[in-house]
């Protein structure tokens, strides 16, 4: 079942290339949207059939490279199921959003379908090598998206993105090999590794390698500098996937690999994680506040939002004792934040893309008062911005409230500092809204002005509205998500040794 879900998009991508060269674009778009929509439906079915108390489900295990102890092992639990659902929803949104994409639509669609396979594959992987393969392939796929369909400076941005994150993945591989060597019998299987004794002695170094690799992908300060450039140059749909899904690979890795497989080292170095988390929260928000480029600003808010996750997983490790309630709350908050950030930042990047398409610039100073011309674009951006700054009623609040409440007891100072982050994000979003959308009307000058500045078209709002609607569903009826996540976050914490 999972295998089918993972490889259907790849098959569809291959099918697109088999189609005769003169196939009309409408057919290609149709295949793309149908595939992603079908997958979303399939994952909804998966979710319906999932038993929250049942641990790992839909498992498949097959021989792959027995010589090196790597197998094909996939399955889902409460950590991966929300990620899979998020992936499907975001890829569907991007397929709908790209309905009017004219440039080499066949390659674009095929690349996104290929990316979807790598993302789904990564989130269901229960084998380190399999995880690594999907991790690297996703980098390759995104490289081509940026290099092929990006804006002016795309070549440089794509190269920087590729080299930086590829370097991170090499550190990750080094760490995986460390895990492999420490286990006896040697294996790359995550479930077996979790059951075996955690590596002693070199565990700190292994955690450094794994954590470093994941930190580049997440990204945390100071490894984030590839992010703003990649985002400003990537096409809107590429940015939405990059921020919405690819960044989650880093934080997901923390919860899936680093924490359960290296529990002792995790506990020992939890303070480092907490510090990195707080620094990312505050630094990301501050740098975002100083941006004049709308998309770059959103990119930096990602650093801020990912910082909360790192803080939460660090604080969750800090103590055992008095039950696991607060820690479990923090971990659940971290997973909720991944989903929430995926939905909201995905929506924001798509909206930023729509803004760019109309004004041909991301410079906030070039716009003013476009609420009069584009009320729907304005309304949706206002909603997405307020959701992203953690307004209750949206998923961001559920995530951040759990993270703060769960972390405060063990890390009061760090949590008190990072709470300031939600004030900074409020400031920067309000400032951006005021500059671009409110005030007297002014449209960017440039070649071809005055150009028509229309409101969102049907395909754009069809892509964005469901993302925001889902954020509201999670924000108002959080049990729908938390029922699945909570048992899994408790299970993750059980791996940690009690002090």
């Amino acid at each position, binding site marked *: 079942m999972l295998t089918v879900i993972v490889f259907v998009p790849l098959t569809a991508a291959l099918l697109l290339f088999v189609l005769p060269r003169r196939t009309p674009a409408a057919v290609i778009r149709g295949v793309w949207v149908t595939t992603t929509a079908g997958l979303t439906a399939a994952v909804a079915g998966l979710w319906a059939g999932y038993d929250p108390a049942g641990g790992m489900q839909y498992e498949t295990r097959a021989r792959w490279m027995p010589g090196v102890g790597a197998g094909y092992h996939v399955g889902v639990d409460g950590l991966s199921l929300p990620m899979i659902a998020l992936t499907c929803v975001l890829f569907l949104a991007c397929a709908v959003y790209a309905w009017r994409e004219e440039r080499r639509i066949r390659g674009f669609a095929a690349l996104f379908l290929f990316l979807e396979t790598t993302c789904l594959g990564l989130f269901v992987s229960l084998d380190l090598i399999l995880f690594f393969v999907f991790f690297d392939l996703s980098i390759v796929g995104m490289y081509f998206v940026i290099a092929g369909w990006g804006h002016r400076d795309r070549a440089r941005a794509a190269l920087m993105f590729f080299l930086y994150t590829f370097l991170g993945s090499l550190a990750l591989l080094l760490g995986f090999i460390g895990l492999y060597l420490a286990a006896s019998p040697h294996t790359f299987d995550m479930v077996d590794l979790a059951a075996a004794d955690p590596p002693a002695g070199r565990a700190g170094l292994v955690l450094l390698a794994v954590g470093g690799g994941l930190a580049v992908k997440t990204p945390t300060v100071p490894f984030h500098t590839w992010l703003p450039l990649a985002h400003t140059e990537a096409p809107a749909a590429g940015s939405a996937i990059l921020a919405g899904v690819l960044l989650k690979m880093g934080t997901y890795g923390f919860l899936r690999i680093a924490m359960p497989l290296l529990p002792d080292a995790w506990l020992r170095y939890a303070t480092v994680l907490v510090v990195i988390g707080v620094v990312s929260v505050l630094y990301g928000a501050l740098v975002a506040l100083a941006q004049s480029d709308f998309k770059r600003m959103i990119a930096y808010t990602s650093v801020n939002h990912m910082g909360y996750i790192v803080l939460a997983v660090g604080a969750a490790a800090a103590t055992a004792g008095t039950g696991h309630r607060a820690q479990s709350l923090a971990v659940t908050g971290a997973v909720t934040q991944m989903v929430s950030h995926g939905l909201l930042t995905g929506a924001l990047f798509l909206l930023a893309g729509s803004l760019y398409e109309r004004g041909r610039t991301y410079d906030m100073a070039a716009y003013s008062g476009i609420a009069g011309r584009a009320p729907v674009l304005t309304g949706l951006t206002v909603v997405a911005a307020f959701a992203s700054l953690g307004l209750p009623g949206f998923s961001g609040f559920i995530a951040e409230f759990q993270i703060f409440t769960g972390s405060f007891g063990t890390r*009061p100072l760090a949590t008190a500092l990072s709470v300031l982050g939600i004030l900074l994000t409020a400031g920067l979003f309000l400032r951006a809204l005021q500059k671009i959308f409110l005030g007297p009307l002014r449209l960017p000058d440039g070649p071809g002005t005055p150009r028509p500045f229309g409101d969102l078209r049907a395909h754009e709002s069809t892509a964005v509205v469901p993302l925001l609607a889902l954020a509201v569903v999670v924000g108002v009826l959080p049990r729908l998500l938390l029922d699945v996540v909570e048992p899994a976050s408790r299970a993750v914490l059980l791996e940690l040794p009690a002090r």
Partner: protein
Amino acid sequence: MSDALLVLVLLPPAVGVSLLTAGRRADRAAAPVAVTVMLAVAGLALTVASGRPAVRVPFLAGMPAELSVDGLSAVLCLTVTAVTLLVLAHSAVEFGRDESRSRFFGLMLLFAGSMLLTVTAATLPVLLMGWEVMGATSWALIGFRWRDPERTEAANTAFLTTRTADLGLYLAAGAALAADPTGTLALRDLPGAGEPWRSVMTAGMITAALGKSAQLPFSFWLSRAMAGPSPVSALLHSAAMVVAGAYLLLRVHPLLEASAWGVPVVAWAGALTAVVLGLVALAQTDLKQLLAASSCAQIGFMVLAAGTGAPTGGALQLVAHAAAKSLLFLIAGAWLTALGTRTLTGLSGAARRYPAVGALFTVGALTLAGLPPLPLWGAKDLVLASVFEASPALYAAGLAAAMVSALYSVKALWFVWQPVPTTAGGRGDGHSGTRRVPGRALPPLAVLASACVASSVLAFDPARAAFTRVLGSAPQPAPNTWELVAGAVLVVGAAGLAWAWGRRWAALPATAGAAFLGRWLRLEDAARLAVTGPVLAAARAAARFDDRVLDRAVRGAGRGAYELARWTDRRLETALTSAVSAVASACRSLGRAARRPQTGQLHQYLAQAVAAFTVLALVFLLVK
């Protein structure tokens, strides 16, 4: 019954969001729909106020979302729904036909829902949800006329200031869980927490409440909020948002008492605000600004009541102030529409021009002045009765604040009852108004005015005892006769003085002190200087560091790797190549040397053999 409570908090936001989504298509239907919904909600509020239901639904792990209605919540629910209903009914007539009415009425409904959620919340997460959504809708309502940058900036100031204070609630939630890891974050459990968490909670709650209620030092946001439409002020800045802080402090009074320092801090914050913002109100030349500053000052009494444990007096102050201030804001808005100005000098004679409105304004202003027997007189004495024993200084501050209320209220009254100026045409703000106040806008105002008068009885037994019973609070000290008389004399005296001074208000000396008060103690400038400026500077510094250090370091590392490669290419590769070539040429010359003896001539080979054997023989001899 518990369904009624759920519908009460969910119906207004649901309809509000629908109106917002429908956009301008719903402009015509918006007002009737909103008023109908609020009528239904008022019915529900009556139901829950008598039934006192509680609802509990699963929310976060071990933290259910809990709503419950007790006496205090019931009073708040009724006040909020009644004022919302009247304000919307008034706005249905007054609010511009060509403005986006669906947005206005939708946001007002959303706001009302979040306020109702706040006052019925029994657990911290739910309280925080209502609390923050209230702030966001307030942003959208203050910046309702978004084409004017000054208004949107005012909206940003209001939202960011209140959110700064709201952070206290986030920390309080964290502290509550840290103190009781198995707790449900129910508000009633908070006082039982151990130190240091209890102090963290107390500090967080107090900060959040002072921010929302525009108490010192956060008051300046309310001044900026006057950029919003008047009906917004009539609801948010009289009966709802700004009293939420006072409500919260009344609600968590047991927590304040449990932590030793909470009570005096809250009491003094309230008393100081009541005096100082009263003086600020006195120094205003703009009616809405005067009313805003007086909101801070009057809420100061509620905060004082929360600090000293006088819920009856505090709640009465809250209800009566809501009615009076809402009435005054609506009239200020109506006059702004009719006369095109809100400055006090511009409003000279406004009451004579529109006598019915003027009479209603007089009721509101006299209530606000705290003149006997109107309700704010009795309420203040109820609050102060419990203060006298504890702290005479606090009592004196309260009396002073009551006198200042009389001064600024009568000052406003004096202006509007001046003879109608002879020069016709719009004055003050430079644009002329519509010159009419529609008759259909009056009934809601009349209801508010009668509420002001009617609530007077609540200050005295037996109504007071019944009110205390409804609130479910312990009996509190009642004012002595001499206290009542002394209070009345002081207030009436101050009011008489204010009227007698009349003309001097018009020519207020432009002293530095008056200007300082007129600009709300320059609190906003101070906040910009102390907070906004440094934060923006830090942001720019961080961005520069990001570009010039971090990014450059990464690029430098990349360039370094490239340079290393080029160096390897140029130096190492050349060296290696030349070493290999050297080996090759050495081999070649060796080969050439080896070829030389091979001449093909026998005698030369013989000579070579002799020489070789001689060498061998010598070696043999030497080694032997």
